[in-house]
């Protein structure tokens, strides 16, 4: 009888090819260069968090020895860790890029937004972001989102269209073919661009190690006063006051993501340098958002709902 049992020994050996990080870097650089080549007014979201730092490093590499030809934008929740904001300002100076800040606090102060009952401000970032895009007439917004972060992000294109309201329609996405990106859009529309789409958390860390990229100190193990809430270690501050039954304790922790202090948790860790972090991430059995982001636990489709409204 005929069978098509595969024979591994018959497969030819290939000459050496670029390794994984080289390929991911080349793809990200290619995406950044396409946007610079085809669009008038790009902007890069930059919070000082590790993914945005890697993205800015890639932009600098893509254009070297010319400067990065676009500004960066931080949508500031007002709940940011002071050391991350310091790092943000220092990095912006180092790369020689202009920084725009869209402040959620301003919107709360003048009543355009109001606090949520749960105190988290991440969902409140959408309106200031869309206003900043409209005000500066940005036509492309680079984001550090990765497809491995969330089920809804897994469906995201590398170059993703947003309508005049900033909305994402997951059922009506443009097909994305080969490495040919369609960056065209109608007036009022813009594209979100995700150069790190195909990177995983481990890839990001390995790249940080390979390129010797500086990060805010709280990505590495340090002593911090935390309270345990819903299985997460939160940093008590003005925005996450310990409740009656919570007792702050000093623990050795690090952050896997840095976001809104009120809903970004630390993890117990003794990893004080990048190699130790890589070993920890490689051995981790909890995804980075699941461990640390209360806002993604809100519902099974939390991220999808926020993305549709224009969140990044």
């Amino acid at each position, binding site marked *: *009888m*005929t*069978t098509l*049992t*595969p024979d*591994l020994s018959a*497969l030819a050996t*290939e000459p*050496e*090819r*670029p*390794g*994984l*990080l*080289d*390929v991911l870097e*080349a*793809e990200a*650089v*290619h995406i950044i*260069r*396409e946007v610079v*080549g*085809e669009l008038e007014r790009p902007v890069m979201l930059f919070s000082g968090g590790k993914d945005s730092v890697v993205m800015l490093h890639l932009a*600098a*590499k*893509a254009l*070297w*020895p*010319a*400067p990065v030809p676009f500004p960066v934008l931080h949508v500031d929740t007002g709940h940011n860790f002071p050391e991350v904001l310091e790092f943000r300002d220092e990095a912006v100076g180092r790369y020689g890029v202009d920084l725009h800040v869209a402040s959620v606090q301003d919107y709360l102060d003048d009543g355009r937004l109001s606090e949520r009952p749960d105190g988290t401000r991440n969902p409140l970032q959408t309106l200031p972001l869309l206003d900043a895009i409209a005000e500066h007439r940005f036509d492309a917004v680079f984001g550090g989102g990765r*497809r*491995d972060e*969330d089920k809804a992000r*897994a*469906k995201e294109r590398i170059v993703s269209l947003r309508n005049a309201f900033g909305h994402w329609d*997951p*059922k009506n996405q*443009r*097909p994305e*073919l*080969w*490495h*040919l990106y*369609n960056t*065209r*859009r*109608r007036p009022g*529309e813009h594209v979100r661009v995700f150069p790190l*789409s*195909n990177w*995983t958390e*481990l*890839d990001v860390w390995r790249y940080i190690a390979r390129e010797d990229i500086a990060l805010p100190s709280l990505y590495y193990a340090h002593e911090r006063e935390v309270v345990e809430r819903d299985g997460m270690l939160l940093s008590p501050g003005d925005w996450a006051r310990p409740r009656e039954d919570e007792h702050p304790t000093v623990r050795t922790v690090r952050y896997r993501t840095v976001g809104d202090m009120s809903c970004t948790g630390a993890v117990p860790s003794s990893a004080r340098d990048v190699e130790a972090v890589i070993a920890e991430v490689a051995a*981790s*059995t*909890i*995804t980075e958002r699941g461990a640390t982001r209360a806002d993604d636990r809100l519902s*099974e*489709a939390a991220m999808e709902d926020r993305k549709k409204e224009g969140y990044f």
Partner: protein
Amino acid sequence: MGTSTLTPGREAAPTLLRLATAGSVDDGKSTLIGRLLHDTKSVLADQLAAVEDASRRRGWTGELADLALLTDGLRAEREQGITIDVAYRYFATAERSYVLADTPGHVEYTRNMVTGASTADVVVVLVDARHGVLEQTRRHLALAALLRVPHVIVALNKIDLVEDPRQVYADVSSQLLPVAEALSVPVPAVVPLSALHGDNVVRTSAATPWYQGPSLLELLESLPPGRDLPRDRFRMPVQLVIRPQQGARDAAHVDYRGYAGLITSGAVAVGDEVVVAASGRTTTVAGIDLGAETVSRAESGLSVTLRLADEVDVSRGDLLGSGVVPTPVQTTSAVLAWLSPAPLREGARVLVKHGTRTVHALVTAIHERLDIARLTQVPTTSADLNDLVRVDLQFAEPLPVESYSSSRDGGAFIVLDPQDATTLAAGMVEVPGRE
């Protein structure tokens, strides 16, 4: 800045393999992907807990959890129990990292398979052991052949549900021979497996003692990523001309002039002669930069900046190559996979993006629709959503296209709507310059 003698392959491993899946909901595709993720330890505790929880709420009573829920990410899909768009998943072994494009298998979602297969090194086509090779299987194999995916594997799923698995395996194998012959492609390898139980997905299973071959993952681990051009045919579409002048981050670079792009095939080394496709002008490579690092040689797949020995007229949209470079042409015949709900008519004015150049184009003729499942051609003068049609195009400016059969990168283009900016079609060049 040290000069290294190699490409910056600072890591020998792992490599990246891009894979796409094709098959229908009922073939158990999402379950197979869930199984690949689960058994390679790529599903983390919190994801699995969420899936177990969701499985229970949906009345799942089987072992483990409904692994399909790992990949069916969007609310509408979970409600309908189908996959409505391409989703990308990641899993890794010590050898390799995988980017997996999960493409829906219904007829109306052909556009998604074209999307997933366009960048794939390998397509895994699912076949339900209870049904054997169906018209849909032939369509998936034909699309993979049309898109020139270097490797195709048939995953014969639900092998645990048939009476005589060995006979079914033999029957499916023999059904594939004429299909492959008609498509002029190598006969795909067939792996009998059970996504539900995990047999032969990551590890070979005692449940199929009659099968002596590798598991699906063992096969994926050993595939060479595809190459489509001889190594000497260097190609790099120019994305940007980098001339910092007074803006240079370092005063040493005020006179810097470099041509930035992704090497789509072949390799380039300092001292190589390169040709500008548009003008035929030749010059030599004076230097290769990867960011601030200088290298002596760079391979296909890397983004580089080339410094050239002479001041040549090169700008974004040009193609640099070595050896025989394609002559720019103003007409070509091509196959279009029509991806828009609005039909295509002869005389349509469109935009074509090829490499880094976008030009206006005219669809001068639509010849026939390809029925790829039956391998027949039907004369037509229009194309509807998901149709594959052979057309003639006229470009407003010459493009250095190559036939898709000789180069995936040199022969691929996308068709855009000049009015509403949507992506209308995937295009594959057949014969450049045909009137």
